[in-house]
């Protein structure tokens, strides 16, 4: 019993421990992240979404508009539109359309946050700081709730991973790989607390 209590306390203690607590905090220049910011002039992706055991595929078009906002339209291969979102440069978000089956606050909020992590539009945040260990650099952007982390190699030459996290644990892991003309060829978004993955593969047109 005592042992169980100890384990429970240890578990509670560990879960309350701040994420990356052991890392060195320093004031490295974060401008090196700019080169990883994707410039979606106009890109078409084959999208695969797995959610709660169900699989959905379609086409996602991401386009930078003349007013610097980014528009994202997801449709089926046969042309049926699932959603149409706008992310403004200032961090605002607008839903132009969404099908009834997806029109739920938590769904929209999750998609918004996931894509914001990938679009990297919040890099102007002044409260940013950097954590380092021997091999990697964790560039943190504190949000009202939680953090966005961009993890690079020590020299900030390669973007290894992106994370959305609470104080104590990682909520979402994402990757962007094989940039061509400023646009990643592969994008992957994976949720840690529930079964929800998004895979995007660029289609050459």
């Amino acid at each position: 019993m005592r042992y169980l209590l100890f384990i429970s306390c240890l578990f509670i203690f560990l879960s309350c421990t701040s994420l990356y607590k052991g890392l060195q905090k320093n004031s490295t220049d974060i401008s090196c992240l700019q080169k990883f910011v994707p410039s979606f002039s106009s890109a078409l992706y084959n999208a695969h979404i797995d959610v709660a055991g169900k699989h959905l595929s379609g086409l996602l078009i991401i386009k930078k508009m003349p007013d610097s906002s980014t528009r994202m339209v997801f449709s089926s291969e046969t042309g049926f539109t699932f959603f149409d979102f706008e992310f403004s440069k200032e961090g605002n978000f607008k839903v132009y359309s969404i099908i009834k089956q997806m029109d739920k606050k938590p769904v929209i909020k999750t998609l918004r946050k996931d894509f914001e992590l990938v679009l990297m539009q919040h890099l102007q945040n002044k409260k940013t700081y950097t954590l380092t260990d021997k091999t990697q650099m964790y560039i943190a952007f504190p949000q009202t709730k939680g953090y966005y982390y961009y993890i690079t190699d020590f020299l900030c030459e390669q973007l290894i991973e992106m994370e959305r996290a609470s104080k104590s644990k990682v909520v979402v892991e994402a990757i962007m790989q094989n940039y061509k003309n400023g646009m990643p060829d592969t994008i992957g978004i994976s949720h840690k607390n529930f079964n929800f993955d998004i895979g995007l593969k660029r289609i050459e047109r």
Partner: protein
Amino acid sequence: MRKQFFLLMLSICCVAVQAQYTGYSPLTDFSKFKEQFSLASQKTTSIKSDFVQEKNLSMLSEKIISKGKFWFKKDNLVRMEYVQPFQYLMIINKNNVFIKDGQKENKVSTTSNKLFQQINKITVDCVQGTALSNTDFSYKVFDNEKTFLVELTPTAKNLKAYFKTINIVVDKKDYSVIKIDMRELSGDNTVINFINKELNTPIADALFAIH
């Protein structure tokens, strides 16, 4: 006075309708069209065709163009295979739908998914010529020298939420479908053009097999 006003309104409405589709005028007697259309579709046992699909995103000034092959065989067998610029296969075999999207294979029973059933029924109804008796839509018919234009307006609530109209362009020569234009409420639309059509050529059942 009231009669004059009514006539004036009627003529405005007629002009508005005519202006809706350039070059087309409304067909007053569409019982003959309906008869001919169903007669021709009764004679059509199979269709083999290439297709070009164009999704227009009006606000984004973008087009997504895809190409593929289409097969239809009576009754209710459809194979639609997108080959460019992505791979996507959809087979409708009676009440079952098989989908292969490059990563996964999926079998869906349309009887368990009403919206899917209705959307797929549109394609089947359009090529099978039974669109005019589908109670999910009301319809109007227009014509020009070479084609008919059938405007389907959804009456079913769940379809109303997605489509403004679905327009089918039918060849006057053989009453076969040339084009399907699905117009969304947002102003975006998807046009499927059927080209290199072959009617009534033998098609193996194996093409529609769902394993």
